[in-house]
């Protein structure tokens, strides 16, 4: 079973104050730390688990600059066999352009399954995976929480709203977007990442993919990025923990709950 995983490096923004950049088109990135996109980490683990069970190769692909190779080495350390970085240059990308670039890169590779994360933690768009599937004419499913391959097919679970899953049978080759919680991603040691440097990492330039200018033109344009509008929000309770606790208990009782 040959599997391709499409992954992305994103800024870590939990418990971080974000600032809008001078052009108001994005976030100030200089002070941010970068990590593997959470959803993609689960996709890598799922690919490696399937490979351990059914054999075949796992190829990790990302679009980005040299710094982004960090997540490819991470994927290689987790068990992927080879990796590809696509260098976009100075080009502005959106989900549409990314899906075109990935489709062109993947078209001639051999695979049974392509896995992506449901979405990336930065844009939260959740579109590249399914666009890529349509470009390649593959079967597809979004928000997948289980994969069991059988001959020519896979039995998959898709997470719906309200505590409900849908089980279905899908023809391979297929593209599935992976939801968090599908597995427990393995720990990656610094030693493991160092060893992974011996594995294959190919760099391709977008220019060399002979995509048309139309394919490389964004369909969506960011006009302005701004901080959430000020609203009243919560009444903040200040003070030391014991006085705060006293006030919380009082509120709970006022609302008619006995403790």
């Amino acid at each position, binding site marked *: 079973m040959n599997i391709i995983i499409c992954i992305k490096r994103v*800024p870590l923004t*939990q*418990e971080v104050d*974000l600032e809008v950049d001078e052009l108001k088109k994005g*976030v100030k990135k200089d002070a941010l730390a970068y990590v593997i996109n959470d959803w993609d980490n689960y996709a890598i683990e799922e690919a490696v688990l399937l490979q351990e069970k059914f054999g075949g190769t796992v190829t990790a692909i990302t679009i980005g600059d040299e710094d982004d190779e960090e997540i490819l080495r991470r994927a290689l350390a987790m068990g992927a066999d080879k990796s590809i970085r696509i260098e976009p240059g100075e080009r502005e990308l959106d*989900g*549409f352009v990314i*899906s075109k670039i990935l489709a062109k890169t993947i078209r001639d590779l051999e695979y049974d399954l392509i896995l992506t994360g*449901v979405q990336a933690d*930065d844009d*939260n*768009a*959740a*579109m*590249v995976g399914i*666009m890529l599937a*349509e470009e390649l004419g593959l*079967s*597809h499913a*979004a*928000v997948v929480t289980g994969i069991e391959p059988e001959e020519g097919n896979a039995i998959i679970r*898709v997470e*719906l*709203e*309200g*505590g*409900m*899953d849908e*089980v*279905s*049978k*899908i023809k391979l080759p297929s593209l599935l*977007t992976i939801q*968090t*919680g599908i597995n*427990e991603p393995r720990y990656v040691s610094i030693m493991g990442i160092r060893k992974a440097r011996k594995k294959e990492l190919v760099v391709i330039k977008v220019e060399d993919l002979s995509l048309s200018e139309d394919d490389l033109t964004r*369909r*969506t*344009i960011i*006009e*302005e*990025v*701004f*901080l959430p509008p000020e609203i009243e*929000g*919560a*009444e*903040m*309770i200040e003070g030391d*923990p*014991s006085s*705060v*606790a006293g006030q*919380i*208990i009082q*509120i*709970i009782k006022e*609302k008619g*709950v006995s*403790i």
Partner: protein
Amino acid sequence: MGEIFVVVEHRKGEIREITFEMLFKARELCQTSSHKLTAILLGGRDEGFVDDLAKWADRIIAFEDDRLKIFNADIYKEILDSLIGGHTPFLTLMGHTSWGMDLAPALAIRTGFPLATDCVDIQTEDGRPMVTRQIYSGKLFSKVSFKESPGYLVTVRPGAFLPPDDVEESQGEVVRQELPSGLTEPKKEFIEFVDTGAGAIDITQAELLVSIGRGVGEEENIATIKELADLMGATLSCSRPVVDKNWLPKFHQVGTSGKSVKPKVYLAFGISGAFQHVAGITGAGTVIAINKDRKAPIFRVADYGIADDLFKVADALKSEVTKVS
């Protein structure tokens, strides 16, 4: 004058709320730009959806066939592609839901129309749509326009547009259509629905919920919050990351993919407030949030907030409760 399409979402014989939210917003857009509002129904036979929809739209185009009873992106995208090709609606709205996430991006490639997902506002400026989205999990907003095109696709965040109870009624014309012949054989086949929310406790019935999120940090720390919940006679619930890490079973989960809850008081410990979580607590009487990140989105929706270390507050609560009883 053009058209706005709204793709009707349904499951297990019921129209999903997101459908009415989209129809409500689409009606508003139609009024300002004199478009015609068309609901597109792909459903099974005899589900009775058409009657429920008639008052919300100018027209309902209905395909009723048992092959459409359960959502299947393969069949749906083929029908919608040909419908959009034939009508060229100015705007097509779908839900940013498990359906929409599987359908809309594929449809964008098929039709060649630009797509913006998970939108919380939609306006029209100079004959083109302009949408607002949240990025970085709601920490920033982004205003997005489109490359010029004959039509545009937008997926709408559930809960972003809430219709009032007294929505203005129209008498939509119903146009029933047969499935086109020669549909491609679908590559996906439905097997069953599985309920993942059932379990040992029912968080939807609790009066007081003590809920934990990613901020709890380590699995070992859950015991200390569980202890607090027990002391208070509260039920323990959680947000998605806690279930993803297998620290608590799924039946504890509050949010879009878990349960919607309606306690008198909801105590949120270390929950950042992703919209998927917040959607599950709209029925809560009072929300008290404890999070050390003063900018956490949860403080935008909570009634009371404490910007402090959750364990310090939990410990103080324990001594306070012990003192009371």
